[in-house]
């Protein structure tokens, strides 16, 4: 039998939280070729950002992604602060780290849950999401909203976290850590999980750079690259070390993310202990001048880059967003061929696709 079958996977598929279509060409059960089809959720946010007032854009860019929304706002604000030469108060930098890491924590738990779901381990999925809910509660308590927290502003942050809430964050993450200790070993060492992930969707170190992959996927292929290493915001005071795995398969990606959840908990503790007191917002005047700036931060899914150019008015000349999934999607064309059709959901999920980010 050498006839090819083309199976469209998605745009509606149980493992995809968002609409992505992959046209998989199969020879029997083996995938031989893959063509990603995008365009189901393109919203033209880059264009809208040119038409809006630059202060309104903080709320607009948050809506690019529903999971790491705060980090989008941080990156945008960093670019504007660079153009306008705004110096942030130290407390604001730390608060951005705290909310950023809380976002990473809940995003990784969401992903670990989805991974369990993608190979049919429903009870593990529910467990992860139960823990994640506590993080969302703490986000709502401190900022007023669950995911799109709108806490970032140009020049700092919009809300302060009271000492009482800081204490509560510490208790919640302690509790989460204890609960995670009970279920992360399941992901790391269970035979069922390993059978489905080890050696699946491998990206070798040498190929990784040409495929342009970023974030946990790149780190799972043995390259220590994390935008937090640049020490933006308060990360320079937190002694950050990236998590790296060597094998480059789905299992390594799961391990990187599992370890990063613990790392985030550690960073949160450190940031809360070091948190300086003082102002949370620097006042600024005027509009961004005729200048351009590039800023980059680390999202749960990888490196996020903003190119922002002002033109002296309250509108911006250009806002370009390079989201992590946008650079991880091409890698699918190398991960999938040669694999079984049944592995496709796990592989696609292993890059943690965020399609709304990709298409903006």
């Amino acid at each position: 039998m050498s006839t090819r079958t083309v199976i469209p996977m998605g745009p509606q598929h149980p493992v995809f939280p968002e609409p992505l279509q992959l046209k998989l060409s199969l020879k029997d059960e083996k995938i031989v070729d893959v063509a990603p089809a995008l365009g189901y959720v393109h919203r033209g946010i880059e264009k809208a950002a040119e038409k809006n007032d630059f202060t309104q854009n903080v709320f607009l860019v948050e809506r690019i992604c529903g999971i790491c929304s705060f980090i989008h706002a941080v990156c945008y604000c960093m670019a504007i602060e660079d153009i306008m030469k705004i110096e942030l108060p130290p407390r604001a930098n730390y608060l951005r780290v705290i909310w950023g890491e809380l976002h990473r924590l809940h995003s990784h738990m969401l992903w670990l849950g989805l991974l369990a779901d993608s190979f049919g381990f429903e009870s593990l999925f529910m467990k992860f999401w139960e823990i994640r809910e506590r993080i969302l509660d703490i986000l709502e308590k401190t900022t007023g909203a669950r995911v799109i927290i709108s806490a970032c502003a140009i020049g700092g942050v919009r809300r302060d976290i009271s000492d009482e809430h800081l204490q509560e964050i510490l208790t919640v993450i302690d509790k989460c850590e204890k609960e995670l200790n009970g279920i992360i070993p399941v992901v790391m060492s269970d035979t069922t999980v390993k059978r489905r992930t080890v050696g699946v969707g491998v990206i070798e170190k040498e190929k990784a750079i040409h495929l342009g992959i970023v974030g946990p996927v790149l780190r799972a292929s043995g390259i220590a690259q994390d935008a937090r290493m640049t020490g933006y915001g308060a990360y320079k005071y937190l002694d950050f070390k990236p998590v790296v795995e060597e094998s480059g398969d789905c299992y390594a990606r799961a391990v990187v993310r599992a370890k990063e959840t613990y790392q985030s908990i550690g960073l949160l503790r450190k940031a809360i202990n070091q948190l300086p007191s003082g102002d949370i917002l620097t006042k600024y005047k005027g509009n961004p001048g005729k200048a351009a700036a590039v800023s980059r931060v680390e999202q749960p899914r990888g490196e996020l880059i903003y190119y922002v150019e002002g033109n002296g008015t309250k509108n911006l000349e250009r806002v370009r967003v390079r989201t992590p999934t946008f650079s991880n999607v091409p890698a699918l064309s190398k991960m999938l061929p040669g694999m079984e059709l049944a592995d496709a959901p796990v592989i696609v999920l292993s890059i943690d696709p965020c399609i709304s980010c990709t298409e903006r």
Partner: protein
Amino acid sequence: MANFLGAVIENLFKKPATRPYPFTKREPFKDARGLIKFDGDKCVYCGACSKKCPAAAIRVERAEKALYFEPFKCVTCGFCVEVCPKDAINQEFEYRKPDYSKSIEKYGPSAVPAPAKTEAPPSQA
């Protein structure tokens, strides 16, 4: 599966993690960003909120001293509350209830009964 056994046994004896909504409701958190209410008497119809609203949910008619608010466009960001010079905007902790139609609220000085739902579509929309 041995690793998961602990969690399985724990699950058997645990209370559910979810609430039987709508019979039990969680109190909204203090300082949650919920629905927006205007105070037609405090407002001076300066239009600052409508200029800053990222969702273009507010329209201020200065001449007729009226403020039209489209609650279903509002993204509850609270930016208008921050920019209002007269503290005429109040953000409650509760979320907005769903509705059958995307109504428009009209606010004005209290001589005009406020808030009243109007059918007149705002010209800007």
